[in-house]
């Protein structure tokens, strides 16, 4: 989930090339929540900065119930920009956008 279509497209190509099955995309926090509810994905890649609800809140809601997806936060910023928010949000981990790769995701899963 990311409001930048170019990053969504790149990430889809990258992940599909590395064997992931990309089931859906969303451009903001609200649609991210409905799409996740509808598609029931195993993993959600979630940008921290979304136009409506921010990534930390979306992550908290997605991981709020037991059978929710694994959430991985991504951002063009560094995790040190966010302090302890990443761990508090319920997300499994944080990957800077520039370092996104199938291997990196596998490590966290």
């Amino acid at each position: 989930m990311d409001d930048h279509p170019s990053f969504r497209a790149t990430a889809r190509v990258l992940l599909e090339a590395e064997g992931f099955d990309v089931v859906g995309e969303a451009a903001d926090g609200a649609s991210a929540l409905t799409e996740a509810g509808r598609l029931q994905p195993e993993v959600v890649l979630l940008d921290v900065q979304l136009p409506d609800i921010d990534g930390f809140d979306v992550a908290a809601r997605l991981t709020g119930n037991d059978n929710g997806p694994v959430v991985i936060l991504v951002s063009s910023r560094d995790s040190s920009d966010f302090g302890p928010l990443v761990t508090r949000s319920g997300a499994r981990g944080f990957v800077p956008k520039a370092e996104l790769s199938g291997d990196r995701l596998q490590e966290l899963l």
Partner: protein
Amino acid sequence: MSGLRRALWGVALAAVIAGAAASALVLSSDHTDYAGLGIVIGLVIMASFIGTGLFAWWRRPSNRFGALMTAVGFTFLLSALTASDNSVVFTAGVILSGVYLVVFAHMVLAYPDGRLERRWHAWLLGVGYFLTLFGMVPQLLWGFKEDMQCDGCPESALLVGSNDTLRNVLDAATSLLGIGVVAVVLFILLRRWARATSPQRRALAPVLWSGVVMLVLLASQLGSGAIGSSRLTDALGVAGLIVFASVPWVFLISLVRSRVVRAGAVSELLLALGEAPGTGTLRCRLAEALGDSSLDLVFWLEDKRKWVDYEGHVVELPREGDPVRAWTEVVLEDRRVGAILHDVTLREEPELLRSVAAAAGLAMENERLQAQLRARVEELRTSRARIVEAGTQERRRLERNLHDGAQQRLVALSLTLRLAQGKLRQDPDKADELINGAQEELTLALGELRELARGIHPAILSDRGLGAALEALAGRAPIAVQLAELPERPLPEAIEAAAYFVVAEALTNVVKYAHASQATVSVSQVNGHAVVEIADDGIGGADPGRGSGLRGLADRVSALDGNMQLDSPAGAGTRLRAEIPV
């Protein structure tokens, strides 16, 4: 009775005894005409000098002017010795009879504070004493000149014979030297007048001008003596005596008059201030009451601990011992509100200054509030200018950083990628190596852009508020940073931003300079103010003027109507506190 008062009574008693002795001497003289008239005139002159002198001495014990005036009275009495029928006493009288003129010159030169201005003035008076003591010696040695002859006077005790030529030459020489000394004294007095400010002139006038007239007459008398015109000498002598006798009275009258006038001025001031308190004419009214057109007012700003003028500009007060200017504090209900800057001569009238300062208190407080406002406006004006300037500089810095950093890396990256594309088919290994290099370059460029973006405005601050932003800041710091307190409710955005940057800059300084092992940050809301505090356990001794960073922060805080204080005693850590009204 105080020691001084007893001593002064002693002097007065000595004067009575000396006067009686002199009168007895004159009455018993067989060569003095009009003895009764002489005694009356002599005693009146003596008494007026000694009486006025003692009065001045009593009023201002630290000022030697009173003592000098008293001394003039006593030395004036010495001329009575010439009435003696005894040859030795008569001779001594002739030698000593002019001494009072030099003491008089001394008194005028030392007016009004009783001290000689320059060391060479004392030398000049020394020459004067020499001339009066030895001026008559030629006549005492070789016989009096014709116009100085007196019937029945005893013979000079020093008489050695008759040598008219030598006597006349020496006599003329001492007269000319005497004129020279008088001329220099006159020059000093007139120059002093020319240089005096108007309140100084008012203080100088009575004694200085009668002294000038007296000295001019004396010089003419010496001159006419030198050319041998006896009638002119006598006439000038009488005129001189009258002016001389008037000096203590002129002094006394001016003293009383100034007291009466000043007392009137103070009550007028009180009335005027009662009618229109706090109008801009306070300075004029005080200048009028104190008779000092150079008078100025300054106001005390307690929060800044500084003196400012009407416009709110910071001013320095004259230091203790300044030869021209002095200041008197104005207090209202035990609180300092300002000060009157005035001519140093007004110090001679401490009672007057005190009453004017007391009368001015309330009106001055009103004007102080206005000055405080102007100071505030002035401060905002300069800080606004600095903020604009800082903004321009910040943009320049950003442009340079973008251009030198990320942009250069992206350019290099573009070249590397093109190179890799060319090698892709013929030399895949080389292409792979180039792409790896490009990857590293890109990571660095991204890191730089992130750093830059964070400096412009941290996204977390606008997204998650001050608490989260400060937590992130604390997490990034290379020393332990404890967040002791954070506001429960979010603060307005501008205040949060200011608070964030205060903490960020303070922590940067702590890391750079303080040699601290840990720091504590707290942001709280107290009495409608956001209070930001950063304390460390470092070496202290931080200079508030150091670095543009702190200055820029102070401007940022003051733009929000807040203020910033730095407390950094050497060896006891540093505490930076900013208060911003919410």
